[in-house]
């Protein structure tokens, strides 16, 4: 039976009758067919059961434990009189972040609002002078940003880099303070040590072709090795002086080196004045040393994580290169190290660092407990870092090496300019994943007796006043770590976008 011929008008689609309505969506997705209805009912019941317990607990929980112990959760037993130094470190960081933002970021980014929201939220939940301190943080960040915008055209990038390089030592200086040197003549020996380094720089700038300057360093080194009583005074300046001279010499053809050497030479004079007149009074009053036993809480976690990341990253890259090296000794050592460390649990390494190091060291020598923990973290993280970086290295096609060779680059240049930038960019997600893991792993130091945020939490739970508040305290700690980890993850995604990972 032949179909009647259809006119084009009947061929056209009917106008859409179905509009999006909430009820329609619910009906279509949740209520039909019958098994969806069943799933919906079961899920709703589950959610109800879970939420009921959680909410009724959350409403009756003793949340006052958090504000009451907020300070020790953040900084442990850090003395109250020096708390302003931790604040100063935070303020500096805010100002530098703001400044760098102003210099480097031209678009309006959503991240900026998120970043600014942090001090705002913290100011809202805190009270008293802590609120003021957070307000100051925000103000400094904005001031930094304003300065950064203005500095953009005037070597702003250089300034920002310099600020970041100087931040870490400043941070350590502020948090730790300094002690009075035990040595009676420290003022004079320090002056001599600095003089050696300054002189090395000046020699490199004005007489770069004179090799006998190195003989001076060698003589110093020989004196340091031959005379035990002078060793501690001469050893460091000899090595650092030589390095400064050796590196600076290569830039002697640049006009600026002489000016730089002159500036450093001039800076030596106020430095001397500082050493002779200001160091002691300052270390007795404002910048007195805070022993590492008093560093605690989140401050300690962040300290360990930052140092762990900073030092394990280059070390890991070195091990990754070592493992692919054609030199058998280096390759074997790298493989042994990586496989040994990866074959041992992190806790074991931490225990070794805490308990074995002091026994292995000569009796008149001791390494600070926090430094030992950081060393353990670096040892552990470097091995994993090496394997991640190796993955990135292996993904680089051979053509890249050949192209670099064709351009006339030597092995070091090939690695630094061609291979590593690509390899590292490829493994950013993995590396950030590892950094996040490292940050969370820092809480394991609580097992070796350090009072990091988890250790402080346990101490709070031992305070007769707060016994029984495990859920509140641990939930708070978990939330803090989630915020930090998510923050890192978010930042890494922006970095990936900026570098175009995954698009090429």
């Amino acid at each position, binding site marked *: 039976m032949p179909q009647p011929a259809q006119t084009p008008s009947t061929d056209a689609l009917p106008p859409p009758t179905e509009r999006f309505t909430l009820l329609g969506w619910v009906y279509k997705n949740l209520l039909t067919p019958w098994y969806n209805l069943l799933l919906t009912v079961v899920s709703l019941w589950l959610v109800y059961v879970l939420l009921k317990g959680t909410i009724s607990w959350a409403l009756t929980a003793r949340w006052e434990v958090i504000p009451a112990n907020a300070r*020790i959760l953040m900084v442990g037993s850090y003395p109250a009189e020096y708390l302003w130094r931790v604040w100063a470190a935070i303020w500096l960081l805010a100002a530098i972040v703001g400044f760098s933002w102003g210099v480097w970021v031209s678009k309006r980014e959503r991240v900026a609002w998120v970043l600014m929201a942090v001090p705002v939220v913290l100011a809202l939940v805190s009270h008293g002078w802590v609120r003021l301190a957070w307000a100051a943080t925000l103000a400094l960040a904005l001031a930094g940003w304003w300065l950064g915008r203005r500095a953009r055209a005037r070597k702003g990038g*250089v300034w920002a880099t310099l600020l970041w390089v100087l931040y870490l030592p400043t941070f350590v200086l502020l948090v730790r303070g*300094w002690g009075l040197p035990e040595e009676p003549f420290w003022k004079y020996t*320090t002056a001599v040590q600095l003089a050696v380094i300054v002189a090395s720089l000046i020699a490199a700038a004005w007489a770069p072709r004179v090799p006998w300057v190195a003989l001076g360093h060698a003589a110093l080194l020989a004196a340091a090795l031959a005379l035990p009583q002078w060793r501690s005074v001469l050893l460091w300046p000899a090595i650092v002086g030589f*390095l400064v001279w050796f590196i600076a010499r290569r830039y002697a053809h640049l006009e600026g080196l002489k000016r730089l050497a002159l500036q450093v030479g001039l800076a030596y004079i106020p430095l001397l004045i500082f050493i002779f007149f200001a160091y002691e009074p300052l270390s007795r009053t404002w910048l007195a040393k805070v022993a590492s036993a008093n560093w605690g809480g989140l401050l300690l976690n962040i300290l360990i994580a930052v140092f762990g990341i900073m030092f394990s990253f280059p070390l890991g890259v070195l091990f990754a290169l070592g493992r692919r090296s054609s030199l058998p000794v280096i390759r074997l050592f790298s493989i042994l190290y990586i496989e040994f460390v990866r074959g041992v649990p992190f806790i074991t390494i931490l225990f070794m660092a805490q308990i074995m190091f002091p026994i292995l060291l000569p009796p008149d020598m*001791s390494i*600070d407990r926090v*430094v030992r923990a950081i060393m353990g973290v670096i040892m552990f993280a470097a091995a994993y870092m090496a394997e991640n970086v190796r993955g990135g290295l292996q993904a680089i096609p051979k053509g890249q090496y050949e192209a670099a060779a064709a351009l006339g680059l030597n092995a070091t240049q090939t690695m630094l300019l061609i291979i590593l930038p690509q390899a590292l960019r490829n493994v950013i997600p993995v590396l950030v994943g590892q950094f996040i893991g490292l940050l969370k792993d820092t809480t394991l130091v609580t097992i070796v007796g350090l*009072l990091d945020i988890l250790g402080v939490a346990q101490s709070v739970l031992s305070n007769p006043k707060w016994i029984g508040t495990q859920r509140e305290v641990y939930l708070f700690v978990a939330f803090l770590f989630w915020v930090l980890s998510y923050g890192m993850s978010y930042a890494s995604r922006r970095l990936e976008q900026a570098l175009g990972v995954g698009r090429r």
Partner: protein
Amino acid sequence: MTRKMWLLLAVLALVALALAACGGGQSGEATQAPAQEAATEEAAGPTSGYGSTLATVKERGYLICGVNAKVPGFGFLNEKGEYEGFDIDFCRAVAAAIFGDPTKVEFRPLNAKERFTALQTGEIDVLIRNTTWTLTRDTEVGGNFTHTTFYDGQGFIVRKDSGIKTLQDLDGTAICVQTGTTTEGNLRDVLDANGIKADVVVFDDVEAGWAAYEEGRCDAYTTDKSGLVARRTMLKNPDEHMIMDVTVSKEPLGPMVRHGDDQWFDIIQWVVFATFYAEEAGVTSQNVDQVRDTATNPRVRSLLGLEGDLGKKLGLDNDWAYNVIKHVGNYEEIYNRNLGPDTPTYIPRGLNSLYTEGGLLYAPPFR
């Protein structure tokens, strides 16, 4: 051009920083970079030999005391970030005896495994961290225990309304205990020895054991008394439970010092005795000034440094014990402040009473 210069400067700064950080390996040298010094803090090394520890402590200007920061009543951080607790107070007492100032002490929180290493390597001067005095620790581990400050031991917690008061009352009850611990073996020994027939309910997990006790599946729960105290306050209605005045194992907890410095041992030992004797003689932090003005008892007079030169014999000032009592208190004050009836961590004194009240605290004469 200038950009390269800045880069150079940055590189140099980094190199200096790295070298400074590596400086941790070298100890005790004049330092110009603070980061370098961070690594070489207190390169004291183990001090052994008569008088060396006191000399080190005095030169340093403060005492370093190894503590536990996670035991209710014995050591924890309060909201202000200060250490508090029974063991902590004895650290402060030693500081008060040496410096006349109970704040001249740095607390090093230690865990159970590293505490002896820390003592051996000289990282701490004295360990006051709920450590049980045993023969092995007195010999092989290389320590000496001074007089015990707290006689701990396995105890029982029961409901107040259960009417259980003595060991015999446990007959026919169910007792919860963690399996695989010395506590379980102890419990069975004690029950057998006393002919008590009780149902021993074992749990792998501490939490599960406590949950069972709280649900009423057991009439009693047993572990070390200090542990019972910590846990009692975590029960839903702590006031409905009490710790029985019965102790069935020996856990003498006290300060530990290194082998080799007898003077230092004597100082710690006699600081502990001073708190005992002050309680016995009725000298408290409140009345010590008054007693010093009016005391006639020659022993009390020499305790407070009014007669003789007991302090000098220890290498301390003659008012060392006065400072201990004035700033920290006598044993009863220390006990009641941390473990007394007015605290949530109340433990009946039991063996930790003066010998005159049936306890084990007995200070040799101060003469």
